[in-house]
């Protein structure tokens, strides 16, 4: 281990003042700009969630009016999906780490990277404008003809906001793809890359291939609202179900955008905190690509009761089962990695273990939904809500927090308080399960989604869920607090406080603007713990 030596010049003090941040080309600073953005929108979306759960604690609609409730869950979904979860890991951790992990000085197109942040904020501005001028009440899914004809809310600004933000996603993906292909350091062959890079590469493929279809679809919704074109209006011969095809063509792959980076983080955490290579590295790498590709073939599993043909339903059902296999392979490989590892119980590993468990549960409930005969009963009920919150909150957010904690010393040069961190992880875990497990039961019982008043026999389970949500909310506030506190008062971090293997640990904490004092040359395999070449660098 190297001694704690904070470099004199690093990327954080390489230029002060607002201009040096708002006009930066440094991928690391841009990552922090994104961090500020996504954290802000997470708390807005979270505030809406808190209001939702408060309303749902009683069976009657007493806290807010039905119109308000409809806007609450819509904006919660929109904010959380488009402005928090899709950018979170790729644009924060990915932006920061990808060039460093491959030994490059920056991404391929730094100016484009900055532009993508501005585009993201512009899209967020439109959507925020929509919120404050009356809100959006179409559900995050914008189904027609409600969104094109019947809704009286701020559909067009919100649609434009999402359209614009989509381009941020596209440009980020484009940047990552070119960077990973072209700018790896000498010796860094594809199969020596950290699995984090493989995951982000796969994610970028999805971003580039899927987001444009969302863009055109949401543009058509806005156009139909403005000009009454009639694509989705049965009165002129249009098909409302067509919208669903086009929307889900993106939105299913989008959920893989939300999980693949998380899986990349978990691979890194498991390797680092067991101090051994991820078991079955090539299989995990190919599984990432398989998820990205197969994820494009399953979208109509969201439309089983929407009026598609029985034949198509069966096609999409069988394909949905196929896409589960690569995820299964990954989970098994991570588990096998822990066998005979040197397993540390530090906070990032706790989050990783939490992820594996909760993703397993959430993913297995996905199988319930792919089973088309069963989905008939549970679709559009809280079973679905539970399924996706298990994966997105119990999975991705845990991975995001784990990654933040793991790379926090690298990003900030500081260490956080380990006991507070462990405690928060526990609070989050308990709060999370209490919030969302009862929703599986509620869903099978038949409580529909997007209801703000419900039959009284569902109340007890709803109260449990709301109680859990308040615990969860507190749990999220804690890391905010102690991580920010550590920026000022935390202990200084060494180059490699975890004793991990990876190019990012071969540079200072925080890194210099050009990432490395000397451009690295890679002569070792990924996660080559214990090999003498690596020992010398660790």
């Amino acid at each position, binding site marked *: 281990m190297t001694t704690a030596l904070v470099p004199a010049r690093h990327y954080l003090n390489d230029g002060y003042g607002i201009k040096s941040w708002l006009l930066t080309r440094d991928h690391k600073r841009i990552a922090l700009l994104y961090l500020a953005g996504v954290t802000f929108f997470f708390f807005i979306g979270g505030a809406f969630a808190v209001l939702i759960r408060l309303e749902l604690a009683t069976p009657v609609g007493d806290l807010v009016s*039905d119109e308000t409730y409809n806007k609450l869950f819509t904006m919660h979904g929109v904010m959380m999906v488009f402005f928090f979860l899709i950018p979170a890991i790729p644009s924060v951790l990915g932006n920061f780490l990808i060039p460093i992990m491959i030994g490059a000085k920056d991404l391929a197109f730094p100016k484009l990277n900055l532009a993508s942040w501005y585009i993201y904020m512009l899209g967020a501005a439109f959507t925020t404008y929509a919120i404050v001028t009356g809100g959006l009440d179409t559900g995050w899914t914008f189904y027609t003809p409600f969104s094109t004809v019947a*809704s009286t809310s701020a559909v067009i600004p919100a649609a434009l906001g999402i359209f614009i933000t989509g381009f941020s996603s596209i440009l980020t993906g484009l940047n990552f793809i070119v960077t990973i292909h072209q700018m790896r350091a000498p010796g860094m062959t594809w199969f020596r890359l950290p699995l984090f890079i493989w995951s982000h590469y796969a994610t970028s493929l999805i971003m580039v291939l899927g987001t444009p279809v969302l863009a055109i679809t949401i543009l058509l919704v806005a156009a139909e609202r403005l000009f009454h074109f009639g694509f989705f209006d049965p009165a002129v011969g249009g098909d409302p179900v067509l919208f669903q095809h086009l929307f889900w063509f993106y939105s299913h792959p989008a959920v893989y955008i939300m999980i693949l980076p998380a899986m990349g983080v978990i691979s890194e955490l498991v390797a680092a905190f067991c101090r051994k290579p991820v078991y079955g590295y090539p299989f995990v790498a190919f599984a990432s690509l398989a998820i990205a590709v197969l994820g494009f073939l399953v979208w109509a599993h969201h439309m089983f009761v929407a*009026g598609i043909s029985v034949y198509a339903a069966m096609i999409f059902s069988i394909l949905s089962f196929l896409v589960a296999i690569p995820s299964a392979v990954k989970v098994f490989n991570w588990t096998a990695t822990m066998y005979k590892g040197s397993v540390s119980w530090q906070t990032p590993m706790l989050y990783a*273990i939490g992820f594996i*468990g909760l993703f397993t549960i959430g993913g297995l409930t996905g199988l319930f939904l*792919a089973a088309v005969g069963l989905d008939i009963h549970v679709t559009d009920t809280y079973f679905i809500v539970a399924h996706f919150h298990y994966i997105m909150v119990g999975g991705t957010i845990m991975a995001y927090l784990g990654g933040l904690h793991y790379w926090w010393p690298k990003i900030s040069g500081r260490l956080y308080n380990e006991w507070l961190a462990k405690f928060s992880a526990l609070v989050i875990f308990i709060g999370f399960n209490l919030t969302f497990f009862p929703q599986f039961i509620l869903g099978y019982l038949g409580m529909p989604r997007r209801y703000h008043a419900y039959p009284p026999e569902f109340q007890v389970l709803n109260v449990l869920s709301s109680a859990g949500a308040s615990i969860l909310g507190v749990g999220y506030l804690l890391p905010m607090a102690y991580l920010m506190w550590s920026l000022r008062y935390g202990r200084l971090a060494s180059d490699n406080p975890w004793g991990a293997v990876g190019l990012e640990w071969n540079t200072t904490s925080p890194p210099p603007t050009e990432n490395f004092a000397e451009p690295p040359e890679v002569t070792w395999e990924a996660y080559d713990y214990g090999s003498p070449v690596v020992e010398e660098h660790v």
Partner: protein
Amino acid sequence: MWTGTPLFPEQASTMAGRVDALYFFLIAISVFFSLLIAGLIVFYAVRYRRRDPAGVGAAAHGGMALEIAWSVIPFLITMVIFVWSASVYMAISRPPDETINVYVVGKQWMWKFQHLDGQREINELHVPVGRPVKLIMTSEDVIHDVFVPAFRVKADVIPGRYTNLWFQPTKPGRYHLFCAEYCGTRHSGMTGEVIVMEPNDYQTWLSGGAPEGSLATTGAKLFSDLACNTCHRPDAQGRGPVLEGLFGKTVSLQSGETVTVDEAYVRESILTPAAKITRGFQPIMPTFQGIVSEEQLLALVEYVKSLQSLPVTEGTGVGEPTTRLPSPPK
């Protein structure tokens, strides 16, 4: 606290058992794999807990056999689930040949049912036990969805298109019917009940003997109970407009504008008659706000709708202009 909190829905249709069986199978698989994975990772975390801060794990680079095993086994499991669920799905999606058909129209935010013999219901559906029922549904405006959890069936209701849903109830009782596709403000209020009756009770209900009469007959009764017919009568003593055949036509108001007599207008005329005064009449109609309930309003509207035109006398048909002004009321 726990009484009155069900944890599992009741089974009230022929398909419910099949769906539940599949569900339990999936639960078993999920419990198995969850415990397996959770158990292993917790076990490994404990068993191989790092003692030496400089400790390193024992690298193993993976064997083909294991990778194939844990790819093939999940594949086989998922294929079994798939075939089973496809079979259940095919059964749910194909109604039997002989069903009781009920027409359903969903609109924001209510359900209208019409039985083949003409009985109409709003938000309530009476069906007999033990016979397959097919709902032929469409929507007036946006996409809705008929969901009866106790029957384990659900289908979207789409404008411009007819969709079907079938079930065969096995137990008499009252079951929730929900709208399960977000449709706007009162999506949570667009609920109702499926009332499954013994065959005898169903027959009674069909012939209108049961207290639950058709909406229009209830309306007729109300019309006389509330003394509407003292003013709205076709003879010379009538002080209000003739309501027979009025529904769907246009009327001129005192303000000069013309308005179509639709449900909303009838409703408004009953609740706030002074808002729109028909040309040629005095504003003497009292308001019935607070006197009629929502249900009664619906019944009255249905009744007015059902009123057929009286035999046409000279020059009073639709669209035939007459140079005779309507006589001012006394």
